[in-house]
């Protein structure tokens, strides 16, 4: 049984605007590390944001963990989002808060308003956060402000924040685009190890085809909102890649 089933997904940003996604379908299984590749403007970010409904698709179905995501709103939507961790290209940390508070913010979906206001997270959450920070190699930086860290360290905070949710699915939106090649590989390796350890499938937008081939077991290739390739990584070849990235050359 697939964790996430996307079928015939269409999305656009304004009523009269062009379709950004034109009938995308794919399934993510329990142990997948699923890559979405394609040139800039192909709709990768839109697709990944449709999954947790940061963007509302115009039509199509997204079934996550047995629920139809497109039908949810309000409290139900927030409950569903708690089970989906997300990691961002620009890290999207709260720069003026400490590393610890940033990681704890992953628990907001489980925290009441009053506790939120005083940042009074339960003891269990704090222990969990400390364990995760230890695990991503930031145990010496717990009380530092997020903007004092380097790019790679910030993305590690992002990973810890996403894992704080105990997610059933991880969404990664270009997690390595703001990092240098060496750190990129480290970050991808860390995500993969953690995902396997915790048994969380990942859906990852990625620009760097080499990284995608190295870390992911399935690939979907988008071009201008249309699926150009979908299948296991081994089936991907130079010709298909050229086709997917053809637009960018022009």
């Amino acid at each position, binding site marked *: 049984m697939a964790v996430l089933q996307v079928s015939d997904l269409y999305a656009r940003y304004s009523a009269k605007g062009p379709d950004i996604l034109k009938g995308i379908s794919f399934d993510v299984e329990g142990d997948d590390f699923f890559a979405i590749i394609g040139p800039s403007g192909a709709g990768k970010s839109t697709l990944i944001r449709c999954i*947790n409904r*940061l963007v509302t698709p115009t039509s199509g179905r997204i079934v996550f963990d047995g629920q139809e995501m497109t039908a949810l709103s309000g409290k139900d939507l*927030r*409950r*569903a*989002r*708690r089970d*989906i*961790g*997300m990691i*961002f290209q*620009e*890290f*999207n*940390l*709260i*720069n*003026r*808060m400490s590393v610890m*508070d940033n990681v704890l*913010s*992953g*628990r*907001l*979906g*489980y*925290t009441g*308003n009053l506790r*939120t*206001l005083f940042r009074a997270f339960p003891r269990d959450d704090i222990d969990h956060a400390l364990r995760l920070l230890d695990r991503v190699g930031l145990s010496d930086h717990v009380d530092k402000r997020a903007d004092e860290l380097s790019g790679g360290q910030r993305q590690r905070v992002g990973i810890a*924040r996403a894992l704080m*949710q105990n997610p059933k699915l991880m*969404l990664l939106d270009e997690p390595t685009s703001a990092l240098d090649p060496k750190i990129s590989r480290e970050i991808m390796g860390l995500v993969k190890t953690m995902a396997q350890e915790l048994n969380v499938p990942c859906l990852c937008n990625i620009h760097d085809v080499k990284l995608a081939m190295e870390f992911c077991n399935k690939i979907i290739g988008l071009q201008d909102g249309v699926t150009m390739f979908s299948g296991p990584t081994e089936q991907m070849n130079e010709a298909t890649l050229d086709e997917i990235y053809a637009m960018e050359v022009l």
Partner: protein
Amino acid sequence: MTPRDMSIATAAEAPREWRRFRYPHSLVSYGSWLIAFTVIVYSIEYLEIPLDRVLGMFGRMGEILANRYYPVDIDYIMDVDYIGSVVETIQMAYLGALFGLLITVPLAWFAAYNMTPSRLFVYPGARFLSMSCRAVHETIWTILFVSILGFGMLPGVLALTLFSAGFAAKLFAEEIEAIDMGPVEAMWATGANLFQVMVFGVFPQVRVAFTGIGIYTWDVAFRAATVVGFFGAGGMGWYLKRNVMQIETERVAAIILSIIVLVLISELISAWARNVVMKMK
């Protein structure tokens, strides 16, 4: 020939004309200067402002200041009653700015287009409220509240509250609209609700700006507080009015002097506080 020389040579072969303003942009640009100038000249003509008297003004002003407003009646402003009114003015400004800022937090949130709970209802309502506070001058608020509540501190505090809330809310809403939406998106993604997104995603980004706006609000509220008394809301403005009416010009001079000194002190403190806040980042 190095590639660099070559590019210069190629450029020299094809000289092109370049002007900052091209038609019709040039017409708009020079035309608006012309219109602005014409309106100035026309207004001066229409209002029959005698320019020769403007030039002769300074001599008379010096004379009047020297003869009527000097010597300044320093003893008058050293009086216990007057100093009491200064303290009253400071308290009035403090309460007005404080209450105004308390109202500002929700008002600015609702009036910020990117974070408002509802773009259809709450946003225009909050915008209208903050605009109404600003549209009416603080002295008019004072007159209004004095006529409802009678003389005293209360109408002054209320007038200053509305006045502070009006412009602080506008500035603060603009700050909220200018934040980086990345952390906000990240907070939504964790399943947080709007309140939690505000606490974690928005307020940390605008905290320093809010402190700055708070200090500025105090600054402006204090200056306004010296005036609201003029319309019966207590404080030093009342002394100013009485002495103006009685043509006690030397005392008026002393009061104006005390206002200048107090505003100066308040601005120095504000500048220092703003500096401290800036370093906090």
